[in-house]
């Protein structure tokens, strides 16, 4: 299948992230190391068909965040992002 058809957005991985973080992560902002753009996670591109989840920059396609689960342990790493910034947890 073509790559474009597999492209979702950060909203599609909100449940997985919400199982790890105490606040909604679609409004968290992430800074791309490739092009410098800063966007909410919900606005970035997500690919969920790989063995794991890849969040890519919606401007330059660099891999911002990768999540895998092996033997019951979750690993999150940040190949091409400077930072991930989130607000205080709220009840919304």
């Amino acid at each position, binding site marked *: *299948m073509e790559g*474009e*058809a*597999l*492209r*979702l*957005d*950060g*909203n*599609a991985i*909100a*449940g997985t992230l*919400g*199982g*790890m*973080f*105490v*606040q*909604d992560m*679609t*409004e968290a902002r992430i800074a791309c190391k490739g092009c410098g753009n800063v966007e*909410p*996670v*919900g*606005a970035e591109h997500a690919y*969920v*068909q790989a063995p794991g989840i890849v969040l890519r920059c919606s401007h330059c396609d660099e891999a911002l965040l990768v999540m895998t689960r092996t033997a019951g342990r979750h690993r999150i790493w940040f190949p091409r992002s400077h930072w991930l910034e989130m607000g205080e*947890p*709220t*009840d*919304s």
Partner: protein
Amino acid sequence: MARAAVRGRLNWTLGEVVELIDETPRVRTIFLEVPEWPGHRAGQHVDVRLTAEDGYQAQRSYSIASAPEDGRLAITVERLPDGEVSEYLVGELRRGDKLELRGPIGGYFVWEARSDGPLLLVAGGSGIVPLMCMLRHRRASDGTVGARLLYSSRSWDEVIYRDELERLAAGSNGPEVIHTLTRSQPPGWKGYARRVDGAMLAEAAWATASMPMTFVCGPTSFVESVAGGLVLLGYPSNTVKTERFGPTGG
């Protein structure tokens, strides 16, 4: 600060199916009573997890269809070819069954009735679901900001929530509802009969000077073409929020 107000991590909870409504031949709305539901905002979704007798689990994310003001939680599910979860939810699920749920999820693709600016909603197929939640929320809270829905379906029979959209549009302060039917049209159809394109967006969209807030939901190619078209019309990209439905649902 009230510590109890902090939601904490998402956890799974149980909901009971209390009603099922067939919206179209391939689309069904499932109403659920969820005792531990903490409430939601318009545009959020919920994860549904099914567990087979042998322990195999499959989970999918569905947009919430019911307004935050409604007493019951509703999701609307389209049956996808070979969709192991949607086949079950649309074909097999019965009243009284229990579903494992986790939510509400998301905060980016969310609209509050008290927000400023007119609202532009653009839906492709079952991408209407979170946008219908926003229109129901607007109605339930007597929202008065202008609202316009451009909704692309393949045929008149595949228009989800067709009657309710007509009622909403006819009500006072109702939204403008503009349909386009891409594959077949009923006799005498005077509306749009093609895919959403730049010319259609130019006719349907609010003037950029009115600072509209825009939500686009549908299949990936639809969402990207509409969002690109709106940016060409001068909509700032950070005012156009998108949610893609991929083929990974099912």
